[in-house]
């Protein structure tokens, strides 16, 4: 077992945890955290392959992609957080109500 394989297997587990969290968590904040965990899994997957394909240095493309991806994910998470806070401010709801 190579080192990168530990991480790529972990990445799949993290992705699944995040996915489950998005579907099953109730509180807005937890759903948002779950999406970031999903993202963490995906990025780990990318970087583990970069390590595998290393020559004199690790494959730089996945690194660059992950940096881009992290920033994009953070921007959306910040937006989601703003939405969640605003909803709480206006209605006092902390999770999705099912009647709508």
């Amino acid at each position, binding site marked *: 077992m190579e*080192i990168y394989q*530990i*991480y*790529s*297997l*972990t990445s*799949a*587990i*993290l*992705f*699944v*945890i995040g*996915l*489950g*969290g998005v579907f*099953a968590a*109730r*509180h807005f*904040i937890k759903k948002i*955290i779950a999406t*970031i*965990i999903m993202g*963490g899994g995906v*990025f780990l*997957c990318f*970087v*583990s*392959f*970069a*390590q*595998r*394909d*290393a*020559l*004199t*240095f690790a*494959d*730089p*493309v996945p*690194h*660059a992609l*992950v*940096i*881009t991806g*992290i*920033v*994009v994910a*953070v*921007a959306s998470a*910040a*937006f989601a*957080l*703003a*939405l969640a*806070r*605003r909803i*709480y*401010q*206006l209605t006092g709801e*902390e999770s999705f109500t099912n009647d709508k």
Partner: protein
Amino acid sequence: MSILIDILLAILGVYLAMQSLLASRLSQSVFLFFAFGLALALAWVRLGAVDVAITEAAIAAGFLGVLFLDALRDFSPRDTEEQQNLTTVQNSLSRKESKSLLLPRLALVLGLGLFLLIALEAVWKIPEGGGLTAAAETLLPESGVEHPVTAVLLNFRAYDTWLEIGVILLGLLAVFAVGGIQIYRKPIAAADDPLMRQVILFFTPVLFLFGAFLLYIGKSGPGGAFQAGVLWGAIGILLHFGGIPVYSWVPRWLGHLLLTLGLVFFLLLGFLFMAAGDNLFEYPPAYAGLLILIVETLAAISIAAALTAIFANLNQMKKEQPNDTAQK
């Protein structure tokens, strides 16, 4: 031995991720998430991705962690899930509901399990792809920088990076949009605390220099626009905490200029060379190093401004009376 560290780190990451979702208190959740981010950053280091580690630590764990912590003040301090369990016991109706949810949850867990098995198989059986290391290695001398990740980010795949700077600006615009119809309001300063202000003022130049260092080192080693931008953004956030709302000091036009500087300069530079007959974002190899440094600097300024503004807007959400509710 070293493989043991990796296994432990992996288990730790998975455990923290699980716990941050299963924790009964919201604050626990957020702290565990913070820890998860740091564990992930360690994992990046283990995988030799120092750039990613810095970015993760700075943005995903640091900046986002601060945002979440700030949000915690907003949401009800009581324990959400626990309270729900409590009411479940008291209220037969919602007990019924939770019973009716049992089956779907079981189905969900079953589905997750099967999905996980297939995902693991997919990841395990992944064929060797070879990656683009070799290609990057051959073209690195033409890129104008020595660090391959920076070369990919700002030259080979500059288009993605440019769009990403756009996404940060968009994140800010989106946060504006959430504020409803009252946009461009002036943020309100935090409570005045002289001691804290002193501490922060002390750290400001340190952070600034560290950021500048990261920016400059990005040419040859781990570091670059995003990391520097986040550090400079941290200055803005700290100052905001310390009762010095930089964001509201800056005149509107200057604020917008700072926000859009990186994006627009990046694009205009591209257009300039495109007018000369090249492709978008194609730099003449002789000047590539210098141009990339300028672009990075401006991008870092824009990112810092955007992050500060995002934080300032989110932070003052609580304080602002939702008086436009009445307009609904």
